[in-house]
Each structure stands twice: as C-alpha cells, then as structure tokens.
C-alpha cells in the first residue's frame, strides 16, 4: 500500500496499540539506488538469520551464558552504519551482533566467538557480549549498561587531540540513559566539543522495565538538550530514515560541531535475552510491532518501487543462508584455546 502523503510521523515514545503509521515514499534526501537498497536488505537479512541461528544454537548448548538478540532492530545498525567510514570508531553494547555484522566483521569470527573458540574475534575470551575487532575499529561489546559511553568519549578525545577528523559512534539503549555515565559523558563531550555520535536505541524497555517506569522524562531527546547537545528522534524501524538522519548528524560531528544525539525508536521482537520469559509486556504489543517488521516493511517498499522481485529476494536469502551455514561450520571447526594459555593477555608483553 503506497500512501503518497507526508513522510512517516515520528512515533511517540510509548506506542499506543493501534496507531501505526502507514508506509510512505522514501525520504527525499536519499536517492535510492537499487544496488544500495539491495545491499541494505542483504545486511538486515544477514543479521536476522544469524540471530535466528544463534537462538537455535543456544538451545542446543553450543552458545552459553547470555545471548541478547537484535531481532527487530536491524534497521538501526544497518542504517546507521551507512554514515560511518572504516576510519570511524564504534562502541556498542552487549546487544551488538547487528552492529558487528553491519560493520563487516566476518560472521564466522562472531559465531566462533560465541562458541568460545580460539578463532573467535576475541579469541573466545569474550563471548556474545564482548565482540572486539580493533582493525575495524570496533571497540566492543560492553556488558555494563552505560559502561561504554566514557570509553567513546575518550576515543573521541584522542581523535580531537591528534587532529583526526573522525567520528566515534556510541550505541546504547534507553536503559543507559538512567546511568550517571550517560549524563557525565554527554556533558563532558559537549564541554570539550568532542566528536561523539551518541546513538540511543530506544526499544522501550530496560531489560524488563518499561521506559515510562524508569524515566520521569520519557522524551530522551530533551535530556540531550540539558547538556547543550543537539538531538533528534528517528523512526528506528525504517532503515532509510535511520540512514538519512545518521548521515546528517555524523556530518556535523565530523565537521567539529561537537556531539550529537540520535534517538532511534525501535523494538526488539525477542526477549531481553534467551533467559527471559517476558512477563513485563503483552504479546499483543509484540505482535503490533511485528507488523512493522523493518525487513518486511523495507521489502514492501522496494517491491512497490519495483526495485525488488522474487528472484532478487531468493538470491539474497540463498547468499545469507550460505553465509550463516559457513559461519557455523567455521565455529564448529575452530580449536579450543589450550589451557596453558589461561593467563595470557592480562598484561601486555614488553619487548626487551
């Protein structure tokens, strides 16, 4: 259904049941090139299938500990990543599989990491919550809510002090907004005019606590104003809207305007983690949001713009399935680190 009317209205922070916006034309500022669009779709599908496979492997005991799935939020990672260069830095949370894949870290290295194998991106030392790839300037994978923000501020500080015009993108959730580090970090970044792109993935829940139950002021963009940081709210289920907003914000940060906060209004279709029986939200609410699945939504639009047909989709799904299967094979074949190596990498060996 194409509604040729105005662009999608911004979603209120707490979505009332039946007020879902209609599909719309692409934002005027993004020329939708077919190749680029199919690329976005491919990346979102890769994340979706990778996460589904991870869920399955968790139930089989291959992946252990905590597993936080990104299903439903794919548009945020994929859209935002379009605005970042390989020279920019990224700090993310424990729900970082989407960002890691969108950044280009091979799926095999990520799967092997979750298996705990030595060929994982962090040598098997981190697991699902601690993906690191320094060559791709991906600095984790942080399990303490709000813990990554100060590190992002510091990376940006180093860039500023060394005269490097690059951006540090910092992903965090609505829960982190409650931590002191959020406030300290926004304040310091603004005070010192640091190139931090604060990217808040507001999926309406801090683990099991709904936004209006943990924030006296649920409009997160207003908080940034309190620190003189410009901010904007974005429909996080629309990959093109995410891309457009992030490109604009990143340009300003890169120019030296100081930090910027983007609030992506999104939703996770799965529980907080594999161990969560989701007692805190109604199944109807989940179904409502699923009807705005970013992947289906995007596919619908691409079809309506005649940029996607069944053959294209089939090719993408086949390619994605192959990637995921290959990732599992890579992980299964990977070696375990020998126990003798237990205490390595606690301190940096010093060359004499």
């Amino acid at each position, binding site marked *: 259904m194409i509604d040729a009317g105005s662009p999608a209205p911004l979603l209120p922070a707490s979505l009332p049941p039946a007020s879902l916006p209609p599909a719309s034309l692409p934002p005027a500022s993004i020329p939708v090139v077919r190749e680029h669009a199919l690329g976005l779709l491919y990346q979102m599908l890769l994340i979706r299938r990778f996460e589904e496979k991870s869920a399955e492997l968790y139930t089989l005991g291959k992946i252990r500990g905590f597993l936080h799935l990104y299903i439903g939020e794919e548009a945020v990672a994929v859209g935002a990543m379009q605005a970042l260069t390989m020279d920019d*830095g990224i700090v993310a949370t424990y729900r970082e599989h989407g960002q890691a894949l969108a950044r280009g870290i091979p799926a095999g290295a990520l799967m092997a990491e979750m298996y705990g194998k030595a060929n*994982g*991106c*962090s*040598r*098997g*030392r*981190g697991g699902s919550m*601690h993906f*690191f*790839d*320094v060559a791709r300037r991906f*600095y*984790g*994978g*942080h*399990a*303490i809510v709000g*813990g990554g*923000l*100060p*590190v*992002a*501020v*510091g*990376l*940006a*500080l*180093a*860039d500023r*002090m*060394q005269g490097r015009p690059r951006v*540090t993108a910092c992903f965090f959730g609505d829960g982190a907004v409650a931590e*002191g*580090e959020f406030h*300290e*970090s926004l*304040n*310091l970044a603004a*005070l*010192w005019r640091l190139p931090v792109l604060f990217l808040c993935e507001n999926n309406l829940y801090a683990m099991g606590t709904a936004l209006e139950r943990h924030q006296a002021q649920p409009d997160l963009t207003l908080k940034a104003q309190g620190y003189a940081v410009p901010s904007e709210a974005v429909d996080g289920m629309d990959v093109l809207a995410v891309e457009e907003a992030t490109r604009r914000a990143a340009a300003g940060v890169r120019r030296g305007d100081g930090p910027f906060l983007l609030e992506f209004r999104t939703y996770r279709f799965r529980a907080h983690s594999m161990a969560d029986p989701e007692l805190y939200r109604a199944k109807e609410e989940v179904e409502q949001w699923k009807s705005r699945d970013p992947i289906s939504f995007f596919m619908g639009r691409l079809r309506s713009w005649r940029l996607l047909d069944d053959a294209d989709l089939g090719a993408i799904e086949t390619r994605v399935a192959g990637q995921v299967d290959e990732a599992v094979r890579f992980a299964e074949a990977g070696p375990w680190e020998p126990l003798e190596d237990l*205490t*390595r*990498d*606690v*301190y*940096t060996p*010093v060359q004499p």
Partner: protein
Amino acid sequence: MIKMTYREAVRSALREALRSDSLVFLMGEDVGRYGGCFKVSHGLLEEFGPERVRDTPLSESTFLGAGIGAALGGMRPIVEIMTVNFSLLAMDQIVNNAATLRHMSGGQLSVPLVVRMATGAGRQVAAQHSHSLEGWYAHIPGIKVVAPATPADARGLLLAALRDPDPVFVFEHSALYGMDGEVDEGAAPEEIGRALVRRPGDAVSLITYGGCVGKVLQAADQLAADGIAVEVLDLRSLRPLDTPAVLASVAKTHRAVIVDEGWRTCSFAAEVSAQIMEGAFYSLDAPVGRVCSAEVPMPYAKHMEDAALPQVAAIVGAVRETLGPHG
C-alpha cells in the same frame, strides 16, 4: 642530585613527560587553574596550555573512562583522581574496562593509562576522606599498583608508569607531599615490581610501603638503640609484588612484621603474610606479625585517629613480640 619535596618531584616528572611526549596529557579535577588540590600540578597549565592540562567536571567515572578511551586511541593520558576516596565512583571503569579490555578483546587492545591518586589518613579529615585502598586495587589482575615512599621514587615510578603499556595506579600518600629528599632529575625510571631494602638488618624483616615507610624507619632507629638490627624493606610495588625480595629478607632474619595502613582484615599485609607462609614457612622462627589500621571508620578527633593508625610504638612493640623473651 637536588633536594626537593615529594610534590616537586612529581611535578618534575609530569613536566618532563609533558615536554618529551606530545601524546602525554594530564586531566582531573582542579589540576589546571587551581594548580592541583595538593599543588602538584602548579604551573603546568600555564606552561602547557588547556589541551594538555585539562580541568574536568566532577565526573570521576566518565573522565577515568575517557582516559581509558584516549589510551585506546593512542594517547598517553595521566588521569588524576583527587584522592582514592573518590575513585570509588570510577570503580566500574577501572575494574570492568581498564583491567579487562586487553583480556576480553583476546589481546587486541592495550590500555596505557596512568592514574595518580592521593591516599591515606592522618590529617583529621574523617571517615570518607581517609581511606587506604591500595590492597583492593592490588587484588585485580590486569592493572598494576605502585606506592612511592620517597621523592626519588615518586619521580622514578611515575616515569616508569608512563612507559608501561598497561594501566598503572600510582598511590601518593598525602602526608608525603611535603617530604624532602634527594632527586636525580637525570636518573632513569625505576622498575615496577622491584622492592628496595631501605635499611639492612638481621633480626626481623619489617616490610612496608608508602606512607608507613617513614614510621618504620623511626621504629628501626629506636630498636637499633637496643641492639636490635631490623631490616626495612620498602615494597614500592604492590602489584606486581617483589616476592623474591620478601622471601630473601625473611630467609635471612627468620621473622617478619608487615606494616600497612589499610584495615587489618583482608589487608594487603594479609597477602604478603600468606606469601611468606607459602614460600618461607621453614625459615620462620615466629609467626608473621601485622601492624595495620584498627577496624573502625577513621574518626575525626586527633587522639582517636592517632590510635586507629599504625604508629611507631606499635611497630616497635610488634617487633619485640615477634622476638619473644629475647627481644
């Protein structure tokens, strides 16, 4: 060699580092305009400018975390946390980031961060401003902990910390800032992990660090007047600990007393005592003694604070007790 105070020695090292390496910078509360709460960084803002000497808001967690991030980004930051008491606000960044990033990333990252903190009690500043938490920090794999007791070591260990690729926490006892000592401003940096015999002896090994070294030396003088020649070992480095030096001293004297300003329970002295038991059990002629702070939050009134802290008389008493009827 020049005679200078401990704070002047730290300042000299900071100046030398800021001058010789453009990647070094200092940040913390009141380090710039105020000249430093303990006047350590006095004059540095004027000399190096606000980019290299940065006053921060009262945001310990974030500015220490920013120090971590800056270190990851190639800088050599020196973060000054005004006192160890305020470092508690930054504990998450210290324990969950600084200490773990290398390990969690599978060896991809190093965090070459230096954190300086004033520590210790004795100025009647009461319970929230008088902690000695070096023992807590020494507990954590992934960071290093040093405690210089003299102006020469304050300079030497800070320069060593700046060369270290891993996070180093430098504990400067606040009572030492005015202490005088000889400093060679051309000397090479000290070695982290090496203890120093301040006074050789054969009767008892008196093992200590930081703010207690002076009291221990005074106690040694008193005991010497009675013909008891104690050996004073200044640990200088708590993590890594110079265990061979400790054991070598005990192998010689067969008795040990550890002096530590932390509270006695689960103190750093307990760790040293355990290591002596493990490594020198058959050399011991008496149980290892400890002189630590009393189990009480630091009281304000002077006579109470004095009674809570390790003092020369208690150190002398502990030595005599370990010597038994012959002491």
